[in-house]
């Protein structure tokens, strides 16, 4: 039983950490992009 729990826990921990990492990176980058676009717009006007 403990092996079973350990295997599922470990596998999902690795996969979820990666999913979390990617999603977080995407949202941070999305914000950066929006911010930069605002700056570009302000510079042009």
């Amino acid at each position: 039983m403990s092996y079973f729990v350990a295997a599922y826990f470990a596998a999902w921990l690795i996969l979820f950490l990666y999913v979390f990492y990617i999603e977080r990176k995407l949202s941070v980058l999305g914000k950066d992009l929006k911010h930069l676009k605002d700056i570009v717009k302000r510079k042009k006007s």
Partner: protein
Amino acid sequence: MREGFVKRILGIASFVGIFASLYMAFFYAPLDKNLGVVQKIFYIHFPVAIVPYIAFFVVFVTSILYLKTRDGKWSKIAYASVEVGLVIDTALLVTGTIFDKPTWGVWWVWEPRLTTSLIMWLLYAGYLMLHFSVDEIEKRSRLTAVYGIVAFISVPISFMSIRWWRTAHPLLITPKGIALDTPMWVTTLVFLVSMTFLYAYLLRQRVNVINLQEEIQDLKDEVEG
């Protein structure tokens, strides 16, 4: 809009699929007579064993496409696929070692499939190292594409040689000969399909990250220059 639609479909499919397959693994599939609950590790072990092969096959194909077309999008997909494949391969090695202990009594067996996965892990960790040690994008794409081709071709030869290495002097190792009932097979297949969806979703997201980073870099250059 189409972009977001595909992403949403993949996201939902992998999310629903994973939960469905977890449910099936825990409640639908019958308990194994010999191994008991430990056998249920197989349901997660199998898909994370297959998906890296798919991921690295994608690397192989996109590497060839990059060298033929010189379109940067292929090298982005190749890189993203390596990274996602490596993560899943890591999950495979972890579940593999945990699966070995109760079934074979040791944490690690130098058995062809497990050993090949380890070598694959090392091959593509090398790919990442190579990626990070070249700065020029064009050159980096070229070199990693060549290595992506070499690495993938070496995988089946490694597998065969390791298998002969073991069978050439017979050991206690038999293939994971767990006879599967129909419900077990169905569960395994559902799990495999949902894991493939998760891979496709992650691949897409990873490519999006690269695209966003590029776009930001371009805008930064514009703002500064």
